[in-house]
């Protein structure tokens, strides 16, 4: 069985320089334990976890150090064994501060006697799988970090027929998912079957951009025999094919209603890394304590794909990759299109850190406050069919009502508009601010 070509493609999209060659052929390398780990309680979308340890406690790897605070939240586990040094707020990658637990590893890396491995997962009930996923603290590892146990337990009246594994990795520079697909194809497929069972989904698609032939080949080869409805779909290479709504359209031709969720059209999308984490949790009984992150960018001496414990600082990861060989002007957690710029390299790896990108001064794009020249390029590339030119001007004038009428809330912040803008306007930032303000205004009413 080979890959099938995607029949559809969402509107808009851009073709940034990919720079994937920096790290694409570097096998995943496991990083030794650093001297200290800072584990944020807010590594997911939703309420931050509640810390369950205090200064001076000793913990084992896999031990719960933060409990899920409500339904849309996720548990946090100790990534290694050691001593709790501090429980205090630290800045998250996106900026605001959240409580974090600092652990000094004891070097033994001893696992706690927790969840039982379950190689025979086919015997499990739906709800057992969901419970295991929740207990393992798994969240979406592509970027947004939506708690996975919520995603795989849709309301009973919603029938899910299709599971899409997102292996598009359309962000330039990043190659972590690519490496996972090349190296761990069989395990990812098994994870997919586990999730499909929990969802009672009959179709499984793995969506991969067609600039990753090795990943497509590996996933196609490892495709399980029994599942007649499993496919590998080759997507046109175009940013943002990895965005959920756009990918669903490309793979199935279904449009997620504006303001709606994929489950409204009977679909759940999971990142390949998340799928692997589910496999690890269910089959091996291991909670999420590490992830693969691409450490890349011009100034990085030896770019690569690093298997690092959650909580590893950016500086430690860069050090592991040979340090820097030229000046660094911008530090980005994530990819260049949607990642968050960091003030320094002290920030810890979280469940959503798909990449750590360093840019030299020559690659930094400076935003300006030039007027819009109405070239319309942003309108042409917007994958949501919005009019970023108009929106940004409404928002500059703080006219939130009109911006709302022009559907600012449908913006997915993919960055296509600002990427194309010849006037170098900070369009995405305008949208973010607008969305925040509209939310605030709605809550007031």
């Amino acid at each position, binding site marked *: 069985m080979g890959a099938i070509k995607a029949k559809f493609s969402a509107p808009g999209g851009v073709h940034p320089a990919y720079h994937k060659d920096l790290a694409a052929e570097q096998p995943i390398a496991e990083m030794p334990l650093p001297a200290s780990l800072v584990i944020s309680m807010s590594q997911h979308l939703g309420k931050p976890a509640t810390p369950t340890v205090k200064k001076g406690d000793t913990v084992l790897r896999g031990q719960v150090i933060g409990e899920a605070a409500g339904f849309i939240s996720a548990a946090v586990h100790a990534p290694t064994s050691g001593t709790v040094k501090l429980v205090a707020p630290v800045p998250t990658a996106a900026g605001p501060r959240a409580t974090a637990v600092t652990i000094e590893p004891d070097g033994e890396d001893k696992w706690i006697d927790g969840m039982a491995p379950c190689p025979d997962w086919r015997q499990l009930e739906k709800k057992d799988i969901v419970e295991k996923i929740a207990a393992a603290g798994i969240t979406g590892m592509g970027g947004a970090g939506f708690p996975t146990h919520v995603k795989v337990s849709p309301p009973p009246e919603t029938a899910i027929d299709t599971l899409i594994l997102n292996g598009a990795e359309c962000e330039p520079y990043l190659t972590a998912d690519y490496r996972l697909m090349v190296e761990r194809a069989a395990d990812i497929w098994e994870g997919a079957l586990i999730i499909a069972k929990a969802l009672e989904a009959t179709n499984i698609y793995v969506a991969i951009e067609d600039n990753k032939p090795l990943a497509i080949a590996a996933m196609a080869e490892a495709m399980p025999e029994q599942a007649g409805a499993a496919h590998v779909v080759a997507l046109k290479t175009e940013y943002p094919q990895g965005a959920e709504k756009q990918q669903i359209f490309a793979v199935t031709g279904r449009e997620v209603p504006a303001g709606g969720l994929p489950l409204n059209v009977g679909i759940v999308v999971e990142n390949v890394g998340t799928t692997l984490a589910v496999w690890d949790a269910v089959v091996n009984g291991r909670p999420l304590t590490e992830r693969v992150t691409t450490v890349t960018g011009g100034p990085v001496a030896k770019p690569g794909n690093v298997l690092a414990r959650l909580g590893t600082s950016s500086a430690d990861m860069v050090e592991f990759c040979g340090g820097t060989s030229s000046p660094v002007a911008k530090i980005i957690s994530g990819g260049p299109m949607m990642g968050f710029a960091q003030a320094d390299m002290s920030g810890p790896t979280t469940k959503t850190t798909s990449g750590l990108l360093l840019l030299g001064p020559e690659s*930094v794009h400076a935003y300006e406050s030039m007027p819009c020249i109405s070239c319309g390029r942003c309108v042409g590339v917007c994958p949501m*069919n*919005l009019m970023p030119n108009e929106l940004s001007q409404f928002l500059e004038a703080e006219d939130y009502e009109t911006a709302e009428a022009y559907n600012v809330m449908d913006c997915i912040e993919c960055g296509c508009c600002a990427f194309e803008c010849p006037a170098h306007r900070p369009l995405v930032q305008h949208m973010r601010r607008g969305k925040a303000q509209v939310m605030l205004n709605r809550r007031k009413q």
Partner: protein
Amino acid sequence: MSELSIVSSSPHAHSGSSVRRIMLDVIIALVPAVLVSLYFFGWDAFRLTTACVVTCVAAEAASRKWMGRNIGIDDLSAIITGILLAFNLPPTLPTWMAVVGSVFAIVICKQLFGGIGYNPFNPALAGRVMLLISFPVFMTRWSEWTIPSPIGMDAVTTATPLGLVKTTIGSAGALPFDFTGSAMLQLFVGNQNGCIGEVSAAALLLGGIYLLIRRCITWHIPVAYIATVAVFSGILWIHHPQQNLAPHFHVLSGGLMLGAIFMATDMVTSPVTKRGMLVFGIGCGILTMLIRKWGGYPEGVSFAILLMNAVTPLINRATRPRVFGAPKGGRKQS
């Protein structure tokens, strides 16, 4: 780290495009037409183009300084306004009028609104129309021109082909000539009377192709515009071939090529959506033909584009794309 790192909102990558680069591309695209104008009109073309460009740049710099803003002429847009305005002037126009037109275009039509990006009308066209209305005699005084091989005629005229047709039909006479074969080629190359930059369809098309390749314009406006003129004039021609000119004549004469490729596609004053661009082009075509056929002026390109500039905000509003995921057939209104 000794120096602070830079933090901005995402995205951290950029296509590398810039306003300056776009303007530079437009200037490059105008080069063939400039050369052709120098070939056909010689000193007059040089005189007017230089006067307009220098005045536009100086007026932009001076007015911005006067308004207490940064000088900001390095986006090169004033140079384009200068060239395009000169292109829309007849070769015999006195220099001082070109200067007045340039100052009007830059100061009143552009800088008063805040400069690049804010002007609702194309400055060069507004400058030309102001001159046309203020100095109608000077603005329609053309150099001498031998009509290229009309059948059985060898005449010298001081009118543009369109002007000639208008006066002849106005006096109820038959059309004075019939452009076919080699005469067509002459028109295409640019051997005709007219404003200094509009005569050569070939040179303008060359520039248009460059702009398309550089993605500075899309095909929508020029194609919709020219096709509408062709269809409109074609219908008239089929019904009354004696009273109307053939579509290819309409397309190749007057300022249509210049207007469709360089003026109507001005980003600031044309719609941003693809559908809007088509509407814009079709509107320009219809208005151009209305004025050419029934209006008081022999040529309607400038007026047509200016009028469509005026409705551009409404077109943008009406052609808002359907938001991805919104119900089909209707726009989501909240």
